[in-house]
């Protein structure tokens, strides 16, 4: 497939599928699924280290840092300040200035707090972070986040972990038309066709976690997601036929 590389600020990737590391039954399954997904960007969360007893295995022992780019997130942060603090600690963990910014507004829906998200984006951009920002599929706030200097705007297809797919493709289309930064669908993806749908719309990538991690066969699903991502991208680049109301025969209708 002849395609350009995906550029996110100073970073370049061939794979357009970004995957998370949460909710796997074991770290071995996770490792195998990451491999099968073909992803180059792996998302991780920042949490307090365990100070009681032995710390146990580290997630980082299972991620080959030569092979993958680590994308820390600020998941679980419910204010701009908390997200900013987390971003700084993530950067200190020594990987890069990449941050997947999430400022959540509500524990049940995990929908983003648009005001806090904008505030944190402005601040982190000023501090030199490469900000990939999770947002709702609202085109207005998406544009405001681009204006604030986000490297990529990442609208949710559906609520985090809900597996509902792309609920409002029209909003995603408007976002794609109004923004010039790369748009990545982040969250809500349930199965392979959801990934394809996002890519066919023209999104430059898809970020997902639960759809693979909680599938009955995570490794197999990771491969399905990889193929779906490539397939959707290829279809997008190929230019689909317009939808028509009436039939249009594929075989000649002339008499013998």
């Amino acid at each position, binding site marked *: 497939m002849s395609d350009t590389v995906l550029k996110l600020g100073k970073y370049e990737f061939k794979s357009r599928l970004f995957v998370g590391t949460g909710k796997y039954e074991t770290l071995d399954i996770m490792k195998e699924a990451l491999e099968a997904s073909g992803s180059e960007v792996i998302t991780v969360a*920042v949490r307090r280290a365990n100070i009681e007893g032995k710390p146990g295995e580290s997630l980082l022992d299972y991620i080959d840092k030569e092979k993958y780019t680590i994308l820390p997130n600020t998941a679980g942060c419910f204010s701009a300040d908390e997200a900013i603090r987390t971003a700084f600690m993530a950067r200190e963990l020594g990987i890069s200035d990449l941050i997947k910014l999430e400022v959540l507004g509500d524990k049940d829906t995990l929908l983003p707090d648009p005001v806090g998200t904008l505030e944190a984006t402005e601040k982190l951009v000023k501090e030199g972070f490469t900000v990939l920002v999770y947002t709702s599929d609202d085109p207005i706030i998406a544009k405001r986040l681009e204006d604030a200097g986000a490297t990529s705007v990442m609208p949710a297809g559906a609520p985090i972990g809900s597996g509902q797919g792309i609920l409002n493709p029209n909003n995603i289309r408007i976002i794609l038309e109004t923004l010039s930064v790369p748009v990545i669908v982040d969250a809500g993806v349930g199965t392979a066709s959801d990934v394809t749908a996002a890519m066919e719309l023209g999104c430059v990538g898809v970020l997902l976690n639960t759809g693979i991690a909680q599938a009955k066969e995570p490794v197999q699903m990771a491969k399905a997601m990889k193929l779906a991502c490539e397939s959707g991208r290829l279809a997008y680049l190929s230019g689909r036929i317009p939808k028509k109301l009436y039939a249009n025969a594929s075989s000649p209708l002339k008499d013998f």
Partner: protein
Amino acid sequence: MQITVNDENKEFPAKTSVSELLKSFDMDERYVAVELNRKIVPRTQFSEKLLVENDILEIVTFVGGG
């Protein structure tokens, strides 16, 4: 001396360094970031940074997430 680590009160000998504290928790320095009184301690300063009474530490690491 009394030190607060991740919201828990802990007792450490005077002049304990950040490095020594991490070692006492069996933590790999490469895998953690440390905030001392809300200010990040660069990894390069872990061994020279000495803690004092009532310091507040936050130690974080990467965990699975999406």
